[in-house]
């Protein structure tokens, strides 16, 4: 039976690989028909799948509608199918070999059709039957084959015909069994868990809690430092009780301590990632709720360094908006007093002041590092810099454990959006929405694909037809996820880290990038050696015998140079096995003719160059030897110059390595005969050297530039400046001291800032230019053996124009590069997992050394491919006035999402500030998006939708909020949040004068829009909060306010406030006529009904 199924599956795979789009449509229809028949044949099976037309019950129809797949769904299902086939195929191939390696009983999966395997097998069977039905593509040409990533299916045809089987499964008997059956844990892990049960040391922290032990075990190898069992148990208890404290009665003391600034381990398969990246969503749905929520809380808190309160607020949307701001301040002040009374805190604070940093509350056992910032000083943005690299490592880890095929970067985001898509309409799993959405946002901070971004926007801005389809909370969660993703990957985040790399290599502590280059006629670095690279170390592991090697260039017999990072021994932390600082070390090795041992002839340690973890550094080394030996001196002058971040740190003597026979022969005439013999042998066989980058390094590097000629300081400094933040930055408006140039009023719509970003690829050109201006003194003394390598830089197409009439500067030789090798993460082939070198063809395979080239495709850039920044405007329409006023009753009735006693609707109150912040995150430091938003009139659209929300609020003056605008004017906390978002949007558009002016006048200073005015149903809370901010702005820059806004609206509001005690507002006609203009007419009509009569 298994062999028959195996054969059918293999046929299915082959059929799938050769199907074209048309076949696919027919196949989906056929699968529906088949599943209908199958359901009739197996009436007792709970695995059902019926077309929508057969549904009689509305509930069933809703279920199917919720799971009606779109184009992306179809693609994901196909991917799952391929995974399933691969998975099953691998298992059955083992079966064919006669070795039963799979722990699952195949019979049980057949006998128990409710299980996950049976569901996938059912899907396989569907396709198999479709295959049998003659749905093979008649053409097996490559052009007709389906590429999964590029598949485009007419959704109008596929949406109604493809149905997804819903598996209603009984709760699993044991969580361990579920994880075991899913392959998250294996038999060896069970044995390790048994050991944990008997571990006396752990029993002191926790006793007899299997779930806690399991969760602890899953996270034990996830990060360094690892989480403690006690914390895991406490988190499980918290999730079980579900009574989350608020800020007023809980501070940091209430937060369960977790390690801070953890380093995600990428070397081994992570059980945590296995849960998330499991091939379908069923695993997440089978795990018990408490365990899963604790799992997500642990994971997100470890990734973001958040406290419990911050997690509750940002992830679970548990914010008490009714809380007075003053109470919050009082509680913070009270906490500060308590802290000041704590002597240990004082000691830590004093120490941090001395060292220039600030300490955290975390102790050494939790990865205390002196450069960590205090919680009060660390906002979310300051953590994002480290967050993006953490998320890259997380997804790098996912690559190892989650996928077998090469094109798997950003896989986690795709998986998570699929999970979100599935659970969004199922009330039983709505508790998963918040953590999944948050994790999706965090994941997308490391780069988002066009498909995921489009899916997020589609889900969030889908027309509001039914609440059960895509709940409002889910939409808000997606908005927040998108905001996190955008802010996390925005360019300004990179600037904070001294570099603007959007491409980098991520190293997991393995062998790194390693390539042996053979066929060289001589040691290329005989007289000159140079290198330049950006690097960032996550941690400096201490205690090992071998410390991280940044760059190693060694010959086959050991000669060469090595630049490594040596942790400071006195500053290591035994428990976390890390050092908080390191220094740079340059070692020179001579060749050992026997090749038996390393001959380190000199080691140069640089105690003045202290390197800290999680900070980008640019290291440039130039090792030169004078060629004037015998002319001005009897000895050669061998010097090394080290530059750190573009500044020359030291110049010291350093001998050149004696590599192979050549250098030995120079100093030993007695070996002349031997030299000739060896030279002959080398010229015959060729010389080889090994270049290794980032061996043992836990961190990231930028492009590696390796020079075999003397390069100037200016060149090295140029390479530093290219990556130091100049590239990719948006030129800020040149107004200092906050001065306003009145001429800007006239050029508001004409402003265009030129993008003066220097492309990183210009580095090669800089080097070439250096060469071009060198007057031909520095002639290449090394010509690669392979002529093809030189052609890359020599513009080979001009060879036929080479003639003797050309001046020497224009000859082909003068265009040759000083670069020996460049490994650029931007020049990598993700599919083949290879980093390309265009100079000598020394391509290197990345996966061998646990390296991954990562490209941060920020949402700011990607949104241009899905319709531009104006695609965000539909979110305003959907969430603010797309029939949302009729859904509050349903929102309040839904108690599945509301936790901790909070109503569901309260989590939505921050929608308007969140939407404005989302737009701000997309235009911040991104000139193209800012110009696009200005061009499409996005600010006007936003104003009109907010005005629409206000009208909804004023037209339905009732006790319960009918609009998202009402809470903004009622609760000071929300008012402050709104003002922060408005200020953020104004600040984000500061690089585009037109946009900033428009936001300033139409949103921030739009008094009729925000202030309560004559609307008695609106509270004056927003007025009290907003107007002081506006007065500060007016005092700081009155000319700007005068030019952009004027005083008309202020006078009008003054009039309203003065007359508000009377029963009616008696505004004189001349005042009205003076105030009514095109700008504020909408707000005035809404605020003052008499205006309508006046206009009529």
């Amino acid at each position, binding site marked *: 039976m298994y062999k028959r199924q195996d054969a059918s599956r293999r046929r299915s795979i082959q059929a799938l690989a050769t199907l074209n789009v048309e076949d696919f449509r027919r196949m989906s229809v056929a699968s529906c028909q088949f599943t209908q028949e199958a359901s009739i044949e197996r009436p007792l099976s709970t695995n059902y799948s019926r077309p929508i037309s057969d549904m009689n019950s509305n509930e069933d129809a809703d279920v199917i509608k919720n799971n009606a797949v779109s184009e992306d769904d179809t693609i994901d299902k196909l991917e799952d199918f391929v995974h399933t086939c691969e998975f099953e195929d691998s298992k059955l191939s083992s079966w064919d070999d006669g070795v039963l390696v799979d722990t699952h009983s195949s019979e049980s999966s057949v006998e128990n059709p409710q299980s996950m395997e049976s569901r996938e097998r059912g899907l396989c069977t569907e396709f198999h039957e479709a295959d049998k039905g003659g749905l093979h593509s008649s053409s097996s040409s490559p052009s007709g084959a389906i590429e999964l990533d590029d598949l485009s299916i007419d959704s109008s045809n596929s949406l109604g015909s493809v149905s997804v089987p819903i598996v209603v499964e009984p709760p699993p008997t044991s969580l361990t069994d579920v994880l075991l059956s899913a392959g998250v844990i294996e038999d060896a892990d069970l044995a390790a868990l048994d050991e944990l049960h008997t571990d006396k040391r752990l029993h002191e922290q926790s006793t007899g809690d299997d779930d806690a032990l399991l969760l602890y075990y899953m996270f034990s190898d996830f990060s360094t430092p690892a989480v403690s069992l006690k914390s895991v148990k406490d988190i499980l208890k918290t999730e079980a009780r579900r009574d989350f404290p608020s800020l007023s009665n809980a501070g940091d003391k209430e937060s369960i301590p977790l390690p801070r600034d953890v380093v995600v381990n990428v070397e081994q398969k992570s059980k945590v990632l296995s849960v998330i990246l499991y091939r379908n969503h069923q695993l997440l749905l089978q795990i018990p709720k408490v365990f899963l929520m604790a799992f997500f809380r642990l994971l997100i808190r470890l990734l973001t360094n958040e406290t419990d309160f911050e997690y509750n607020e940002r992830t679970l949307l548990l914010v008490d908006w009714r809380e007075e*701001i*003053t109470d919050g301040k009082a509680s913070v002040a009270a906490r500060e007093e308590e802290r000041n009374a704590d002597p240990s805190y004082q000691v830590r604070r004093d120490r941090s002041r001395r060292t220039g940093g600030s300490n955290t509350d975390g102790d050494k056992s939790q990865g205390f590092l002196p450069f960590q910032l205090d919680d009060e000083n660390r906002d979310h943005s300051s953590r994002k810099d480290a967050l993006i690299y953490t998320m890259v490592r997380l997804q790098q880890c996912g690559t190892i454990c989650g996928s077998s095929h090469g094109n798997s970067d950003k896989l986690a985001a795709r998986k998570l959006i699929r999970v979100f898509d599935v659970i969004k309409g199922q009330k039983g799993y709505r508790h998963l929405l918040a953590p999944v959405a948050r994790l999706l946002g965090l994941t997308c901070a490391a780069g988002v694909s066009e498909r995921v971004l489009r899916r997020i926007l589609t889900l969030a801005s889908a027309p509001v037809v039914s609440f059960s389809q895509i709940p409002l909370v889910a939409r808000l969660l997606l908005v927040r996820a998108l905001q996190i993703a955008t802010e996390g990957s925005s360019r300004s985040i990179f600037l904070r880290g001294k570099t603007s790399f959007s491409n980098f290599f991520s190293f997991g502590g393995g062998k790194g990038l390693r390539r042996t280059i053979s066929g060289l006629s001589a040691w290329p670095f005989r007289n000159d050696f140079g290198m330049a690279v950006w690097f960032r170390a996550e941690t400096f592991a201490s205690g090992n015998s071998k410390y991280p090697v940044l760059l190693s260039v060694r010959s086959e017999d050991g000669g060469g140079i090595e630049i490594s990072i040596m942790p400071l021994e006195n500053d290591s932390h035994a428990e976390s096995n890390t050092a908080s600082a390191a220094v740079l070390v340059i070692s020179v090795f001579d060749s050992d003719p026997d090749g038996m041992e390393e001959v380190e002839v000199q080691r140069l340690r640089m105690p003045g160059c202290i390197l800290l973890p999680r900070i980008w550094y640019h290291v440039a080394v130039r090792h030169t030897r004078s060629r004037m030996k015998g002319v001005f001196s009897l000895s050669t002058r061998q010097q090394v110059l080290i530059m750190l971040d573009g500044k020359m740190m030291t110049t010291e003597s350093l001998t050149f390595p004696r590599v192979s026979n050549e250098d030995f022969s120079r100093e030993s005439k007695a070996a002349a005969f031997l030299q000739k013999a060896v030279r002959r042998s080398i010229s015959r066989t060729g010389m080889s050297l090994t270049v290794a980058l980032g061996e043992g390094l836990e961190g990231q590097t930028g492009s590696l530039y390796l020079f075999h000629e003397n390069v100037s300081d200016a060149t090295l400094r140029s390479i530093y400046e290219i990556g130091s933040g100049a590239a990719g930055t948006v030129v800020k408006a040149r107004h200092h001291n906050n001065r306003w140039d009145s001429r800007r009023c006239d050029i508001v719509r004409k402003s265009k800032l030129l993008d003066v970003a220097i492309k990183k690829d210009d580095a090669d050109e800089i080097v070439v230019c250096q060469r071009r201006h060198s007057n031909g003194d520095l002639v290449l003394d090394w010509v690669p053996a392979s002529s093809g390598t030189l052609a890359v830089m020599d513009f080979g197409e001009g060879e036929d124009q080479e003639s003797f009439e050309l001046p020497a500067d224009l000859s082909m030789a003068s265009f040759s590069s000083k670069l020996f090798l460049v490994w650029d993460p931007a020049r990598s082939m993700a599919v083949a997992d290879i980093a390309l070198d265009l100079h000598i063809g020394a391509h290197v395979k990345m996966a061998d050394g646990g390296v991954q080239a990562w490209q941060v495709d920020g949402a700011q850039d990607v949104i241009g491919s899905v319709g531009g920044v104006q695609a965000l405007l539909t979110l305003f329409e959907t969430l603010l006035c797309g029939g949302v006023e009729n859904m509050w009753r349903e929102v309040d009735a839904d108690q599945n999402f509301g936790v901790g006693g909070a109503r569901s609707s309260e989590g939505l109150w921050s929608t308007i500030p969140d939407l404005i912040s989302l737009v701000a995150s997309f235009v911040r430091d991104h000139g193209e998006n800012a110009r696009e938003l200005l061009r499409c009139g996005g600010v006007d659209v936003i104003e009109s939708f907010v005005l629409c929300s206000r009208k909804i609020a004023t037209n339905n003056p009732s006790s319960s909020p009918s609009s998202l605008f009402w809470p903004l004017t009622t609760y000071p906390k929300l008012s402050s949040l709104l003002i922060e978002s408005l200020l953020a949007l104004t600040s984000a558009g500061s690089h585009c004068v037109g946009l900033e002016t428009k936001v300033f006048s139409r949103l921030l200073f739009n008094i009729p829009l925000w202030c309560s005015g004559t609307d008695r149903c609106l509270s*004056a809370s927003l*007025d*009290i909060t907003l*107007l*002081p*901010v*506006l*007065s*500060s702005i*007016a*005092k700081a820059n*009155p*000319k700007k*306010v*005068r030019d952009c806004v*004027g*005083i*008309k609206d*202020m*006078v*009008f*509001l*003054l*009039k309203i*406030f*003065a*007359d*508000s*005690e*009377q029963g009616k507002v008696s505004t*004189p006609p*001349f*005042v009205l006529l*003076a*105030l009514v203009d095109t700008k504020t007419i909408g707000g005035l009509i809404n605020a003052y009904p008499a205006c309508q009569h006046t206009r009529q």
Partner: protein
Amino acid sequence: MGERRLVSDILLAMIFDILASGTLPRDMSPFLNLLSYYLDAEWDESSNETEEKSEISRTGARHERHLISVKGCAILVFLLQIKPAVPSILESFAHCCGSVEGAAGWILCAMVNSFDDTIRSLGVRCMVAYIEKTATSPDAPLATGTTLEPENTSSAPPEGAGARRIQSILAVGKGLAGMGPGVRSVVVTPSGLTARVAYKLLWHLLRGHRARIGKHTYAALVHLVVDNTNKTSSLSSKGFIRENLISSNDRVIGGFRINMDFANQMLLGRSIVSGCSLRDGLGISTVLRLLRYLSTDMREKLLCELLALVERDTSSIIALSGLPDWQPCLFQLISEAMERLGRQNKISVTIDGSTRDPPSSEVEVGISLNLLESASTVEKRADLCLDLYATLLGHCVRGGGDKVW
């Protein structure tokens, strides 16, 4: 109520900040409209009330409107007092009121002609500041902008003067076009209103409200006589006024609000201090002619101030004695005082002698005591007037000339 007042103060602070940075007609217009509306409404309500009762009581929204009116008028006064002048404020003011004399007329009608002492005092100060900036001489028409010197027809025009004139006319035309519509009528059209006429109108209005002149108007009259914010003083600088008139809210609320304590300190009663210089003659003449209509206390206080001023500073004597109105005004005051003294003496002789029966009732005793008290006051006032008159006359006699006679 507190929140509303806070919001009003914040809005007024923003309005002042914006207007002080440079005023445009589109900003000035709604502000003046608001003030006009409130002052007119207040005039209507007060005029109805004053017929029935003497004191005005404001409650509720009317009180709030009155507060906003006072603060708004104070803002206008400070805007006009700022030196150097706020860019385009005079042009904008005149544009909103139709013409230069229209602006002066608005000040007189809306602010000076008010039943409220504070508003009236602010109107006087506003008028002083406005005339100071628009009048070049007492009999020259009020005008905004640069005043052109009268052309010297006797001297022959230099070479190329025609071309330069054409260029300057073109430049002026371009500038006027750039200032927008309505400027032509404001700047180019000569005004028929002179400073002398404006002060006479002011005098008439103050005389009409003589019964309601309080401490604020008195302080404004002192301000009319002396200038304690001369050109070198930093009290009228924009930075000083912005820094003090706009104060920060408390920490919880944040932001800025208008500080009326500073405004009251600046605008309320202030005695003549040393170092102050006398203003131009029109203002002093107005005050001297108004002296006889003031209440006794105010008259005495003002005479004391003037006497102290002339005794302290010779330049003040020169300035005062140079006025054409000082002698008749003081002579009238002295004659009135002497007449009253003579009448008082008759009454006192009658009371002291036995020609008349002793007062039969308590009312008569009270009247007699009041008369005796006022007699001392009249004596004091007569002494003050005589001292001031003697000082000025002595200065004239010492100076000699025809004016003495």
